[in-house]
């Protein structure tokens, strides 16, 4: 077995700084869930396909299950827990709730963050663009129809 020592890992998550000491082989997903108890990001597949582990790094959606925690120091990490505005839901979360875009909820944090990032980059996406942007987030429950409607509703309103 290869050698490995713990190392300092300083993470900026949801505008808070966390001083950790951990092993370099830990993924960002593990650290978020096990050390910081931010369990919104989920492990659905372990190989970067399903999108349940999606978090934002400097605003860009990434697969936290394929990201080493030690490699994202100094970056701004946003998890689903960092999206809501105090006691109020973020408009993207609100839209998902209002449009019945959530059934079992396992894919929802990843789906919502990806949708948020899409709208930040492209405030008025077409349905085709929405479906493509969400094509890396797998949902087994909804058939995606109401998820697309929820995101569309934000596009039309101009958010």
């Amino acid at each position, binding site marked *: 077995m290869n050698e490995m020592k713990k190392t300092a890992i300083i993470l900026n998550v949801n505008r808070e700084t966390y001083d950790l000491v951990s092993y370099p082989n830990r993924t960002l997903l593990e650290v978020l869930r096990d050390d910081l108890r931010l369990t919104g990001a989920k492990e659905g597949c372990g190989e970067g396909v399903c999108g349940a582990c999606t978090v934002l790094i400097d605003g860009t959606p990434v697969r936290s299950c394929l990201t080493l925690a030690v490699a994202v120091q100094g970056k701004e990490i946003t998890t689903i827990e960092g999206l809501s505005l105090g006691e109020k839901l973020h408009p993207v*979360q609100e839209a998902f709730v209002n*449009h*019945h875009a959530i059934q079992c909820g396992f894919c929802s944090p990843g789906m919502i963050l990806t949708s948020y990032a899409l709208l930040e980059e492209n405030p008025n996406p077409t349905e085709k663009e929405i479906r493509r942007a969400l094509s890396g987030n797998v949902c*087994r*429950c909804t058939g*995606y129809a109401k998820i697309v409607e929820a995101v569309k509703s934000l596009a039309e309103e101009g958010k």
Partner: protein
Amino acid sequence: MEDFSYIGKDMKRIDAACKATGEALFASDLNLPRMLVGKILRSPHAHARIVAIDPSKAEKLPGVKAVVTAKDMCGDKWGVFKYTQDQQFLPTEKVRYVGEEVAAVAAVDEDTALEALSLIDVSYEVLPAVYTIEDALAPDAPQLHDVYPSNINVHVVIDVGDVEKGFAESHLVREDTFTAPEDSYFQGEPYAVAAQFDHAGNLEIWMPNAGPHLKAKPLSNVLKIPLNKVRVRKITIGGAFGGRSEISPADVICAFLAKKAQRPVKIVYTREENTVCTRQAHSMVTKIKTGVDKEGRVVARDITCHMDGGAYSSTGPIATSVPFLCMEQAYRMENVRYNGYRILTNKPIRGMFRTHGRGFACGVDIQLDMIGEALGIDPLTMRLRNARQAGDTTPTKSYVASCGLTETIEKTGKKSRWTEKFGKLPPYHGIGIGCNSVQTGFPMGIRGGSQAFIKLNEDGGVTVITGIVDNGQGNDHMIVQIAAEELGLTPDDVQLITADTEVTPSDPGSYSMCETFIGGNAVRLAAQDVRKKLFKIAAAEFGVGEQDLSAKNRKIFVTHNPQQTMSIAKAVRIALSRNESISGEGSYWPNVDGKREWVKNPYGQLSEAFSFGTVICEVKVDPETGQVEVLEVTASQDVGYALNPKVIEGQFEGGVAMGGQGGMLTEYLQWHEGRVLTPTQLGYLLPLAIDMPKINNIIVETIDPNGPYGAKEAGMSVAMSAAQAYCGAISNAVGVYFHEYPITPDKILKAIEEKKKRERKG
């Protein structure tokens, strides 16, 4: 229908916000004090005798707090039914599939747990294995279990009327065989279980499930503790689709580890483990012989189905029967025979999957299309002519009180412009139809009923206590809608304690499509019980009869003189001030034939109500690559009554994705003997947002006489009819009727090439 406040309305689900924020906790999210990581050692062999297990090196590894092997358990065999008791939670004699549990550890972290697994010495004597139905049935095949000769686990026989006479009298008879390999559940959430014991020997356990009460009893049996010491807790569940119904070895193993370690233990499955070591769907070979009269009405039908059940029974008798039952509910036929065989092989265990046999369902429907073509009758008309009607009795003797199948066929046909399109589309452009039906539960003996309690607070708020479980489909919300409506409260006033076996009374569970019908009725009755008591108080205060009162918006008022009003809170306080405790109770036991049994007596009232649905699908096929583009799908179902239309639409849309888009185009497991080669999301292809077509939803309501507000079920039927519609559409597009599913591009290309060859010759 009455003017309801919440029933029938598109209300936001009460559990949506906490899922949107990531607060909702799934089993793998739980963190209990001093919790250990559990890992399971699995068999690398498909069939082998366990010669010896030596865990001693693992036990000595620092950081390991418990190791369990079969020695720690009593060795009793468990089964869903008394006559299918064939599975030990940790096997003592032999392993029967690659991935079967052999031993387990609990350690301070995952690395230690994994290292400990590698230190458990297991010696096996590899035995010959069987991987196909054919091999399993061969005369000299190795037997998986002594109790199932010829590896035939279940044989369901249904014989009604005179099938041979029916064929003799038929105008046209045809026989076809349809095959489909396993599909797989791929719930969003991989399985996980957490367990802990307290000082008094009470077990608390959390896992995704479709019926906590069905988990509690086997735990009680194997741990040898009474039911009141087994608390299967409420947890947010990431989908079930039929694959999380009964006890899992992981549940028992986790409990034993927690007991031994005297610390909480959590086992989290990888995606691979979820695919291989929970449940899969059955692969099936279905031979269907159908005889019709000149008008295409089915006179006789004879079906033989062989299903590959994997290594153990699981819900074998149910899984073997449901595909047939769905069909006999959907279509009229007087003479029908069914031989359903569930065969054991050295493969992972198969359970009940939402689509319940795409080969079976699609076979029935595509054969109707083929027969229709021979008679010059289009597929939609074939469905209309054979459709179940209200007032009918099915061949296995279930009375059908409400049925809107014809309405779903007509409405779907109209919305999809069937008559304009069928037979008139350009080459490689097709349209297809599928119909099916689902029962709302089945006889479950002492666990067939649901009971609900309602606790009232002095400020008029309530807590509803029920065993109803929510797998993500919205059952918790349904309870709130019903209770708020009946009690005249707002949804905010209704809190829930659900699916917790310490507190909630028994309930059949969600896997049999009966939560709305049975559980919902119980909640309604409990709420009505409370209302009656409150109305008695208010009636006395107002000097009117109880029948003159209504309740809405937290107030009780005289219906025709709404000025006379009293808050519900006040009515509660009046009761309390009279030293009268006030609460509600309701229970519902469906009026079904308690003597009906899957194998011994498959006749009698199966459930009180049946849902019926139709899906029409339109596709385009690329003749060079065989790829399918799905243009539009129209899904319709007679749900009885839509308690929450948007929630129901969500079930339709999810059903189209699972049964149609995935089930017909891309989903199948690939194998190397007994090993799953596609256990991950990269290998097993689930539908993505970019591939889904436009879906039109048509809710049909026939207001069932017994369902709560007339509601029946909505979660399963569309998955099946979507599969059938996709099959019909692709067959129509290519001009070849497909018998093997899923209809992947290579099969389409082959069919196109062979058709061209035939046309050149002819």
